[in-house]
């Protein structure tokens, strides 16, 4: 019974194993970045950046069809341009970064939709928007795993300045010149993970695996390490359950995975021990020392 429901789909079908591996790679790479996005009150920045990479991927598609390399490079370039441009505008003008980011990503998104709809067909658009986790080939898997590894590595190196940039940016600026470097490297990580994630889950759903597990983790852990571990766990469980649901009920896999993560978030919201609805409203029996 359990075997048929949980193990057999992966044992019998190569595409399911690939999908699971791809999703685990995305989970490991994207969730720590998502945790920091949430801690920096930039959750929606992930969403904006996901839209921003669309025209790059579209131009890549235009140049060489459904080519992994071209769409990846295109997405990376578009994301970096939007990140740098909005950061630059925020630093040299009086417009705040969130407003300039919104402006640039909207321009970018419109451009992307224009390109896809004039030069592709609807199936291509769906592919870019919602991904093809059940059709990951070797190259795509290697790309996803490389992005995830690189992301974890860079985050490990950048950890101390990034924590300080989040907690007390003024202090970081007063002791170090790394503030700007930290900020832009972090945005580059966001873009990289979204581009990796979009091959598996599509540009829209890739943000989901980045942010939802991190949001859920806030109800389970208090330290940064705990948050990252909890978020990665939620993401991997969501991937597993989502893929199985999509297999057994013929659902599109990307949305299935994100919806399971959404359910995980909902349950955490209610049952999470750290500020969850129940924990918050239960009478405390004794005071913390």
């Amino acid at each position, binding site marked *: 019974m359990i075997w048929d429901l949980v193990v057999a789909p992966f044992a019998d079908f190569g595409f399911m194993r690939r999908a699971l591996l791809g999703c685990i790679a995305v989970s490991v790479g994207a969730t720590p970045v998502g945790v920091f996005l949430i*801690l920096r009150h930039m959750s929606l920045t992930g969403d904006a950046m996901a839209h921003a990479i669309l025209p790059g991927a579209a131009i890549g598609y235009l140049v060489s069809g459904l080519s992994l390399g071209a769409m990846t490079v295109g997405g990376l370039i578009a994301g970096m341009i939007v990140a740098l441009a909005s950061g630059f505008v925020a630093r040299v003008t009086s417009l705040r970064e969130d407003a300039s980011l919104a402006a640039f990503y909207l321009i970018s998104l419109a451009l992307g939709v224009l390109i896809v709809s004039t030069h592709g067909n609807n199936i291509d658009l769906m592919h870019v928007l919602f991904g093809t986790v059940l059709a990951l080939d070797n190259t795509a898997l290697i790309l996803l795993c490389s992005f995830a590894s690189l992301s974890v590595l860079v985050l490990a*190196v950048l950890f*101390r*300045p990034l*924590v*300080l940039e*989040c*907690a*007390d*940016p*003024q*202090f970081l*600026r*007063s*002791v*170090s010149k*790394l503030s700007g470097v930290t900020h832009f490297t972090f945005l580059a990580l966001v873009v990289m993970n979204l581009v990796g994630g979009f091959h598996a889950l599509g540009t829209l759903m890739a943000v989901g695996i980045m942010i939802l597990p991190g949001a859920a983790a806030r109800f389970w852990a*208090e*330290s*940064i390490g705990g*948050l990252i571990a909890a978020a990665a766990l939620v993401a991997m469980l969501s991937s597993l359950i989502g893929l199985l649901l999509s297999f057994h009920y013929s659902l599109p896999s990307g949305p299935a995975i994100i919806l399971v993560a959404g359910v995980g978030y909902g349950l955490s919201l209610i049952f999470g021990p750290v500020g969850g609805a129940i924990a918050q409203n239960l009478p405390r029996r004794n005071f913390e020392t």
Partner: protein
Amino acid sequence: MSAALVFQNLTLGYDRLPAVQQLDTEIQEGSLTAIVGPNGAGKSTLLKGVTGALAPLEGKVHIDGFRDEEIAYLPQQSEIDRSFPISVVDLVAMGLWREIGAFGRLGPAMPARVDAAIAAVGLTGFEKRSIGSLSGGQMQRALFARLLLQNAQLVLLDEPFAAIDTKTMADLIDVIKGWHSEGRTILAVLHDYNTVGAHFPQTMMLARELVAHGPTAKVLTSENQFRARQMCEACTGTPHVCGKTAA
């Protein structure tokens, strides 16, 4: 005694609107100086000018005695994200940044130094608490512990006693006096004239321009306070000029 800081015809401001005008004075090395004046007098602006965060519109700040890493600056608390999950001990240990940088590891003696700094501000037992659970006064104690670890020769404090209780203030003043006895140079923006009179030997009174600077008893006269208020009332006539400088 030599001059640690020389302000030479210094004008600082935002958007070309001056907040501090034509300041010409010197801060002696090893002195403990309070900066006082009405709201919008340019006190915080002056500290930003010393840190280099704000470039002068005119004139110069000579800080020849100190290298960059010998200057520590405690701004008003606004930019710290208190909801960020970081513990007191981690926040305080950030004071070692100049020594270990972004990537170095804590040396063998450093954990003991962090503990000592936390003990010096009376926060022993709070090491593992997250900064979000601290009261305003405890938070200020933690920030002073971080300053202690920075081991700076020039310490700049922007309203360090705003919204904290008298016991905390007394403890933190002891820390400041400790720095003073070690020969460090300290500049603190303060509001409470009683505190200034009791603990700060030197005072600089600002009202966008320099009103007076010297031994506290000679500066904190009612004539000077009256003059400073009048000078600042003159500038509130154009609120967009002074409104900007209030922070």
